C-alpha cells in the first residue's frame, strides 16, 4: 500500500490560514471522520484530539482548542495515520506539523530537552551542540579513506550526506565506518561534505520550527550546489525524508537515496563477498521515514537475507504497519516530557515485539533507533539475549577480510 502521490506536499510557506486553499489542504474537506488515523496512532489514546478530531476542529474553525490542548506534542510524525487514511489526506506531511508548530509556539514553557536541541541545531548545525569543526573527525578512525568532496576537485558519483548522529554519536560513527568499508568494497566513487555539512533539519521541519528548517536547508543546498555529483546517499532516514519532501531536488537535478537502497541495487556484486557467517535471528524494524514514508520495505530485507547464517523473522507490526520508535517529530527530545505524562516509551513497546519474535538481533536503518532501542533493551533487561545493529553494520561484519 503506497502513500498516495507520495512526493506532493504543500508549498513551504503554507500556514494554517492558507492550508485549505492548497490542493492538499482541500483534501481535508473530504475526510470521512472514520477514525482510521487514530487507531494506529502510537499515542492516539493519550491525545485529547487524535488526528480525526484535529481535522474536524479545523473544519469547524475550533483549532485553537486543539492547539491549547497540547495534543500534537504527542505526535511522533510516524506516518501511521497517513499511510492508512482512506481519503489520502496528507496528515503527517502537512496538517499535523502545522498544528504542532502552533502548539509549540503557544506552550507556556517549551520542554527543556527539545528547546535545547533546537537551539543547538540553529547554533551548531547539530542537535547535540557539538562543534561543527569536529563533524568529520570520525573519518580518522574509519580504517579506509573517506574523501572530502572539496578536496576531490572533480565530480563524484555519490555525495554521502553523513548527518549528525552518524558523525558525532559513537554508535552512529560505528555505522559510518561500516558504510565506508562497504563503499570501498564495492568501489563506490564517493565523497562527503565533511565539516561543511549541517543537520538536514528534518526534525526541525516535523516540529515545524520552519524558520529553523529553512535556514538549515538553505545552507545545505548552497553548499551542495558548489559540487557536482550524481546522487545524494544518506544512512539517515530522517534526512532522506527531508530531501525527498522539502529540498528542491528536482530544481538541481539531484537524486537522493538511502544507503540500503544503494547497497540493495548492487546486491549482486555484494553478495559473493558476504562470506562470514553471522549466526543470528534478525528482526528488521521498518523505520517510519524509509518504510511508510518512501515505500522501501524489501531492500533492507534482501540485504539481510543475503548474509550467510542470518534468519530473518518478522515482528507483529511490520512493513507499513510498523511501530514507531518514538523518535520522530521531535520525539527524540521529548522522552522526559512523555515520561512526565506517564506515557509508555514506544521504543520499549517495539523491543518487546522483537523479543517476542525470537530475535537475537534487532536490525535498524535509522540512526535514532540505535540509541533508543539499545536503551530500551537495557531497561527491559533483554541485553543478554538481544543486540541492536544497523543493517550496514551487519553487512560490514559479514564482509570478507
Amino acid at each position, binding site marked *: *500500500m*503506497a502513500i*498516495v502521490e507520495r512526493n506532493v506536499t504543500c508549498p513551504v510557506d503554507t500556514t494554517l490560514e492558507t492550508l485549505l486553499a492548497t490542493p492538499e489542504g482541500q483534501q481535508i474537506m473530504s475526510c*470521512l*471522520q*472514520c*477514525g*482510521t*488515523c*487514530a*487507531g*494506529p*496512532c502510537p499515542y*492516539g*489514546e493519550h*491525545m485529547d484530539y*487524535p488526528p*480525526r*478530531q484535529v481535522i474536524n476542529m479545523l473544519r469547524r474553525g475550533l483549532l485553537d482548542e486543539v492547539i491549547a490542548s497540547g495534543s500534537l506534542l504527542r505526535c511522533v510524525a510516524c506516518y*501511521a495515520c497517513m499511510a*492508512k*487514511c*482512506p*481519503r*489520502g489526506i496528507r496528515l503527517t506531511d502537512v496538517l499535523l506539523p502545522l498544528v504542532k508548530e502552533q502548539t509549540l509556539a503557544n506552550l507556556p514553557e517549551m520542554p527543556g530537552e527539545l528547546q535545547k536541541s533546537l537551539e543547538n541545531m540553529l547554533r551548531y548545525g547539530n542537535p547535540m551542540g557539538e562543534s561543527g569543526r569536529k563533524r568529520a573527525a570520525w573519518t580518522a578512525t574509519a580504517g579506509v579513506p573517506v574523501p572530502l568532496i572539496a578536496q576531490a576537485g572533480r565530480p563524484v558519483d555519490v555525495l554521502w550526506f553523513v548527518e549528525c548522529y552518524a558523525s558525532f554519536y559513537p554508535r552512529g560513527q560505528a555505522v559510518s565506518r561500516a558504510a565506508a568499508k562497504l563503499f570501498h568494497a564495492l568501489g563506490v566513487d564517493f565523497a562527503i561534505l565533511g565539516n561543511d555539512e549541517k543537520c538536514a533539519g528534518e526534525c526541525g521541519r516535523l516540529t515545524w520550527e520552519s524558520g529553523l528548517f529553512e535556514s538549515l536547508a538553505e545552507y545545505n543546498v548552497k553548499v551542495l550546489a558548489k559540487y557536482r555529483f550524481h546522487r545524494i546517499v544518506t544512512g539517515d532516514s530522517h534526512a532522506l525524508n527531508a530531501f525527498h519532501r522539502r529540498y528542491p531536488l528536482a530544481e538541481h537535478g539531484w537524486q537522493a537515496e538511502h544507503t540500503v537502497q544503494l547497497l540493495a541495487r548492487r546486491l549482486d556484486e555484494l553478495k559473493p563477498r558476504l562470506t562470514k557467517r553471522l549466526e543470528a535471528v534478525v528482526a528488521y524494524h521498518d523505520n517510519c521515514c524509509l518504510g511508510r514514508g518512501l515505500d522501501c520495505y524489501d531492500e533492507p530485507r534482501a540485504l539481510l537475507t543475503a548474509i550467510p547464517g542470518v534468519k530473518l523473522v518478522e515482528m*507483529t*507490526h511490520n*512493513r*507499513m*504497519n510498523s511501530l514507531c520508535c518514538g523518535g520522530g517529530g521531535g520525539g527524540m527530545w521529548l522522552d522526559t516530557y512523555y515520561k512526565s505524562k506517564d506515557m509508555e516509551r514506544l521504543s520499549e513497546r517495539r523491543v*518487546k515485539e522483537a523479543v517476542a519474535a525470537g530475535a537475537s538481533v534487532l536490525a535498524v536503518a535509522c540512526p535514532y533507533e540505535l540509541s533508543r532501542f539499545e536503551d530500551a533493551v537495557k531497561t527491559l533487561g533483554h541485553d543478554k539475549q538481544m543486540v541492536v545493529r544497523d543493517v550496514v553494520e551487519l553487512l560490514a561484519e559479514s564482509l570478507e577480510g
Partner: protein
Amino acid sequence: MRQSMSEPVRIGFYICHCGTNIAGVVDVDRVAKYVATLPNVVVSRNYKYMCSDPGQELIQQDIRENQLNRIVVAACSPLLHERTFRNATAKAGINPFCFQMVNIREHDAWVHTDKEEATTKAIALARAAIRRVPHHKPLEVKQVAVQPGVLVVGGGIAGIHAALTLADGGQKVYLVERDLTIGGHMARFDKTFPTLDCAACILTPKMSQVRAHPNITLWSYSEVVKVDGYVGNYRVTVKRKPRYIVEDLCTGCQECVEACVYRQPKFPDEFNVGLGLRKPVFLPFPQAVPAIVSIDPGTCRVFTHPNGCKQPCVTACGDRKAIDFSQKEELVEVTVGAVIVSTGFQIFDAKRVPYYGYGVYPNVYNALEVERLVNASGPTNGELVMRNGKRPKTVGIIHCVGSRDENTNRWCSRVCCLYSLKLAHLIKERTEAEVWNFYIDMRTPGKLMEEFYNRISGEGVHLVRGKVGDVYPDPADPEGQRLVLQAEDTLLGRVLKFPVDMVVLSIGLEPAADAQQVRRTLNMSCGSEGFFLERHPKLAPVSTCNDGIYLAGCCQGPKDIPDTVAQAGAAAAEAYALVTRGYVEQEPNTAYVVEEDCSGCKSCVPLCPYNAISFVEDKKKAAINEALCKGCGTCVASCPSGSIVQNLFEDQEIFSEIEGVLANE
C-alpha cells in the same frame, strides 16, 4: 422524398438552450444570429427545448413553409437525440440523413466556463455543420435479420434469472458457466438480508428449473472464448473444459466418490472457500446443477501418479460408463441474436490491507468464509467454530475492508453494511457471542433495509462508529489466540482496544479478475474502476455501447440480490425485445467500393474487423457486403487509390466540416 440533389440547398438551423445547460454558458441568440448570415441558411432560430414536441414541430413547420431541404440542430449528444430530430425531419418529408447534429452541450457548454470562448466554439461547430450538410445525400435505412437465441454468460443468480425469463418467453438460451455448477456467489451464502430467508431455499428451485427447462442449454465448466459478428448475428465459440465425466451418462449417484482410493476427503474444497476438504472426484455441493460429479486432474492419482491408480471409481460407475479419463477440451459454436453478460464479481482480497492480519492470524476470516461456517451445508455443518476448534465468545466485524479507500478500492460496495448486520445476527444466534460491528457510515438504503438495521441493532449487537486501525495479538492472552482491535470510537472521541476471539472482515466487491478479457471478447467498455459500463447510467442501465449485448448483476457494479434479479429481468426484456422483433435497422453509414477506381490490391480485405470485404476474382475488384459493414472506416482510410467511400463520411463532407471549423469569418 421530394428533394433532389439538383435543387438549391435551403438550410434550417436550430440552437437549443437545453434549459440552462447550454444557454447558461453559450450565447445562443448570438450563435443563431451569426448562423443566419451564412450562405444557404434560410432559417436560424434558438429555442428552449428543441427535443420537446413544440421544438420538433417548429422544424417541421419551417420545412413546410420555407421549403427547407437540410436541417442542422445544435444541442446535446447525437447519442441522445439524433434519432428524435431525424424522425422529425422525415415526418416533414425530408430524407432523415439530410439532417446534421452539432453537440454543443457535452463538447462545449458542459466542459467550458468562459462564456465568450464557449460561444466562439459553438459558432465554429455550427459553421462546420452548415458547410457539411449541403453535401449530404438521401440514404435509406436497411433492415438486417436477427437470429433467434440468446447467449447468457455467467450462471450466478443474475444469469439464472435472465436465462429463465427468456426461456419462459420461448427463446432458446445458451447459458455458459465457468464453474462446475451454476449458482455463483449466492449459492455460498447462508441467509439473505433483509428477510433472513435461506439463500439455498430460494436459489436452488431456480437452479433446478434451469436444469429442467427445455429451452435452456447449460454449458457448465465452459468459457466463451470468441465472439464474432454483430447485433442480431453473434457467432460465439465456447470452450468446454474436460471434467472427465460424460455429462449425459452421469446420474449424480456419487458411488465413484465413495469408491475413490482416497478414503477421506483430503484436498481444499473450492466451494467452501478452502475451509473444507473434498476428494479428487466430487460434487461441488449437494444441490449443484448440473448434478454430476467432476474429476480434478490436479489431485486425482490417475493424473498425478506415474503408476496411475486402480480406478475403483470406474468400477463403481460400472455400466453407466460415465468416467472418461481421455476427455479433451472441446470447442462448440453457436449463433445468437443477443448476449447477456452476467459474469459477476470477485471478493476483495483482504491481504491487500495487511494491517488487518488476514492470512497471518488464523482467527481472522473474510465474510464469505463466515457465510460457509454458519451454513448447514458448510464445512462445520453450520456450527460456528474457528480454525482452533473453539466457538468465539467475542467477535469483531470490520466494515469497509477494500471499499471507500483510496489505497484499495474507492467505491462503496453497497452490500457490506447489510451483510455485516446479517452476519452479526447469525453469529449471535449460533454462538451467543458478543458482536462488535465497526463501521464508518451505516448504509442501509432500500426496501425494508433500514427496518432490518433497526431490528439487528435492537438485538444487542454493539455498533461502534470508527474504522479499526490496527489488529494484533492480545499480549494479555497467554495462548496468543485473542486479537486486539484498536479503533477510535468516533462518537466518544476515544481510542479503545477491543479484545476479540474472532475477526470478520467485511470485504468489498470488485471486478472479476478476468473482466478485462471478457470486455475485449465482447467489445464492451469498462468504467475506471473496472466494472462493465452501461450505455447510460440512468436511461440505458442494462445496455452496453455494443448493440445487442446487455449487462446483468455485479459485473456492472456492486449490488444486492433484489437489484441483481431486477436488472437481470430488465436485461432479459431488452434481449427479448430485440430477438422477437426479428430485425435491426442498420445505420446507412456503410462503405462502398467505386469499382472503376479500385486497383484490386486487396489491402483492405484483411483489415476489415467484420469480414465484410471480399475480393471478386472475375472482376479483380474488392466488394463490401453492406449487411456486414459496421461503418468503422478502416478500409476507407487504408485504400491506396481512394476508391472506397463511406456514406455520411465522404471526403467532401469531412473537408467542408474542417474548413467550417477553421474558417474565421
